[in-house]
């Protein structure tokens, strides 16, 4: 599904924020990604959702070398990826419903096939009564759930979530994890970045640890103990 080989990344002419990153994500796997603030978790996800080009190394996604993909192919690759951004990136002037519908519209889904799944999913994340609310009127946790709904509406094959439980209480955090596990059961590969060690401890999924731009270990919970 995803393969990184000796990948390095720098922003512009700055220092390398990621160094010698090598790992693979098997299809259908569920991985945590953790590390201290500023370690490069969001940067690594940015490479994964094809929002930035690595300064060196090889990235293969869905069996394609992304360095060789043209802009059209990159767009198609991104359509198979769902992203929960750390800062949500909701569109302020679109209602909750239209924010979630956006990935479907981009993929060319017709109006008639949009309303039902969008409503159902918003219901599922507990925003059934906020269909026409605009993002500014939502609480932090509600925005987070909206961002998650937008990330999963297209049933992505790869879901990248950056601190998806950062703004919700424990109950809702577990609810979100249950949603992710349900998606994982349906075949979606999941990479979840968080520095919430308790969350990681509660689940049996393997965890990658980033420290100062380097991948320290690819550890399972058992190894960590």
């Amino acid at each position: 599904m995803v393969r990184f080989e000796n990948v390095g990344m720098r922003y512009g002419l700055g220092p390398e924020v990621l160094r010698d990153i090598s790992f693979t994500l098997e299809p259908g796997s569920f991985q945590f990604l953790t590390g201290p603030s500023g370690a490069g978790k969001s940067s690594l996800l940015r490479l994964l959702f094809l929002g930035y080009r690595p300064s060196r190394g090889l990235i293969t996604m869905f069996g394609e070398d992304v360095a060789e993909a043209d802009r059209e192919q990159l767009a198609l690759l991104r359509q198979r990826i769902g992203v929960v951004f750390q800062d949500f990136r909701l569109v302020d002037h679109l209602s909750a419903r239209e924010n979630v519908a956006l990935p479907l519209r981009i993929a060319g889904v017709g109006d008639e096939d949009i309303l039902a799944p969008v409503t159902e999913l918003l219901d599922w994340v507990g925003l059934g009564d906020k269909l026409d609310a605009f993002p500014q009127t939502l609480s932090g946790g509600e925005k987070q759930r909206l961002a998650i709904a937008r990330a999963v509406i297209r049933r992505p094959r790869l879901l990248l979530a950056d601190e998806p439980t950062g703004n919700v209480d424990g109950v809702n955090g577990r609810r979100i994890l249950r949603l992710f596990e349900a998606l994982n059961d349906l075949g979606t590969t999941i990479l979840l970045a968080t520095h919430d060690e308790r969350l990681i401890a509660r689940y049996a999924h393997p965890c990658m640890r980033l420290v100062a731009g380097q991948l320290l270990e690819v550890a399972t919970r058992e190894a960590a103990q």
Partner: protein
Amino acid sequence: MRRAPSALELRRDGAARYLPWTIGLKMFFAALAVAGMVALERVASTWESGANAVVTVELPAGSSAAMIDAALETMRRTVGVASAELLSEDAMADLLSPWLGAGDAMQDLPLPVLIDVRIDEGEVVDWAEAEARLYEAAPEASLETGMVWVERLVDFARLGQLLAAIVLMVVVAVAALTVVFATRSGLAIHRETVELLHLLGASDGYLAREFQWQAFWLGIRGGVGGVLCAGGALVVIGFAAGRMEAPLLPNVGLGVVGWLLLILLPALSGLLTMAAARQTVLHDLARVP
């Protein structure tokens, strides 16, 4: 059909407010240039066909009746000539009265004999050939077609057309540039949303479509406004020209083709702004890493 709400709220941009006006102004000039080209084309081709030329045959004073008849006969047999009539003494008197005053002064003058030649509308007469035959039939007769003068007028009209074409091209280029810059600033204003759409899997073509349809409708609106104003101006000009009764300006008007072009102009304006916006988006996005 209600358009789906767009992540790019281009309708609220400043460009959505000023573009129709600037495009409208440019389309106003474009419409006038097109009208000028069409009107000049009609005038020039009328002149070229000679339908409006004042053609006369002149015979020296005291020419014999046989000679006059021969000249008349020759002209009447010329292809494209509708009629050839001897200018009567009364008509001659009318013609000369400004110089000689009404009265009998004319009686004593040795006046030349004039034949007034009318041409069928739309016909092209081979004047060189007609002149040769006239020379055979009535050697003393001379043909005055004024063609040299008409040719100069036609050249002049063609020059006017060229100028109008240049004005049109410049106006179109400036309109396209306006759209290019408006689109570019739109891309800059919405940079974050554009990036988000890319990350959600939108192709450059998807983004180009958002911008191009917005530009299309702005172009249409501007085009309609500009053409309506130009149409009004043309009606006024036509009315004024009609009152001048300028004898040298036959059929000043646009004709069916001219008005059709004007009606089409808003659509062309929309297509122009649409193409400019699309190309700008595709071109600029291709440079984003």
